[in-house]
């Protein structure tokens, strides 16, 4: 763990400070809601300029580690999971990357028939049997994500026996069933949670949550439709746009 700024280190000073502060948060030395030292104190402790401190703190704010409160100071916040749009990354990968303690509880792993417009969303005949998975994702003992996934049964019937608490669904599809997801279509909106969803997510019924609907494709074939309800304060989506020159 880096504890001091090393001026002989080729890494930029603000990156070194950022790593020091990030370690303090991830190791729990600075708990959630802890006010971090002021800019002046950090300058003095690490013998660096205010500009360097500001750059490091701004980066931690952007990445969901710190929260600046006007007139009060900068505080350690509950981890926000930074998520890019259309990234083919599993929840497990995201959590491991963010070094967050997490678990998955499988609430349902069964078979049903499509109702309402599920057959349209999955692009299947309405009499097709569908595997239904309902998983609750818990981070730092707090439920943050409720995920319901639907896959045509005939694509991977053995999925009913797979351990989805310890393994990533996307990895199982890819490694065990050789189904390579090549495209994800995503829709994001704000949606109120139902009584049952609120119970599971620890939210009052009717509270607004982030609803992410995803359609997963392997080539032109649709493989899976997923509906994810996320606690809004624990996720932040990022979109990167590039101008073609």
């Amino acid at each position, binding site marked *: 763990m880096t504890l001091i700024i090393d001026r002989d280190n080729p890494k930029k000073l603000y990156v070194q400070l950022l790593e020091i502060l990030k370690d303090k948060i991830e190791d729990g030395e600075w708990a959630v809601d802890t006010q971090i030292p002021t800019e002046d104190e950090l300058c003095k402790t690490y013998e660096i300029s205010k500009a360097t401190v500001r750059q490091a703190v701004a980066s931690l704010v952007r990445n969901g580690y710190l929260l600046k409160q006007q007139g009060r100071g900068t505080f350690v916040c509950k981890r926000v999971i930074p998520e890019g749009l259309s990234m083919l990354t599993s929840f497990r990968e995201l959590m491991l990357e963010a070094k967050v303690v997490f678990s998955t509880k499988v*609430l*349902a*792993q*069964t*078979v*049903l*028939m499509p*109702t*309402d417009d599920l057959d349209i969303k999955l692009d299947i005949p*309405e*009499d097709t*049997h569908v595997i*239904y998975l*309902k998983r609750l994702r818990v981070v730092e003992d707090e439920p943050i994500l409720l995920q319901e996934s639907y896959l045509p*049964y005939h694509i991977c019937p053995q999925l*009913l026996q797979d351990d989805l608490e310890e393994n990533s669904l996307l990895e199982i599809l890819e490694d065990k069933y050789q189904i390579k997801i090549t495209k994800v279509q995503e829709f994001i909106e704000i949606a109120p949670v139902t009584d049952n969803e609120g119970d599971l997510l620890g939210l009052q019924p009717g509270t607004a949550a982030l609803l992410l609907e995803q359609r997963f494709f392997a080539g032109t074939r649709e493989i899976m439709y997923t509906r994810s309800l996320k606690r809004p304060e624990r996720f932040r989506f990022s979109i990167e746009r590039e101008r073609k020159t």
Partner: protein
Amino acid sequence: MPDQEKQIREIMVDVFEFPHVPYWFSLRQVSGILTKSIRGGKCLRPAAALVFDEKYNLLGHLDLQDILQAVGNAAFTGEKVRQDVFSASDTETTRALSELSERPASSLLHQSRLFADPEDLVSKAAELMLRNSLPILPVLENQKKLVGIVRSTEIFEYLSAAFFRA
């Protein structure tokens, strides 16, 4: 009885010939599924849905007759024969039907308590089904995995052959 009696695995139908529903589906959803199944021409007799729990354990089945009976109980109350029970203006009936439609499948299902093994002889399934008035009998492999369904249709076909020979 035929000379060489068949095993259940030879006459059972695949479980995926029947619609699957979880116990929390509303009767409205189950009715929709059965209607699609009938209209699509793929529906087996009896027109029934198999009801499962969260871990894909079979809990029982729900057939058209169960839903019809429940609708009848909700709509045809009192002694007088009424003409307008399904009209939107009949608020009492409309309310009763609306409440019924939101009840879960578990509220009407026939619990599966009797099962057959694929290696059992057809006569065993026939006896179980006739003694207990079962329209369908689930078939479990190793007392665990649901592999098929025996219907009264198969039992009738099988036994009628012996009946006519007698």
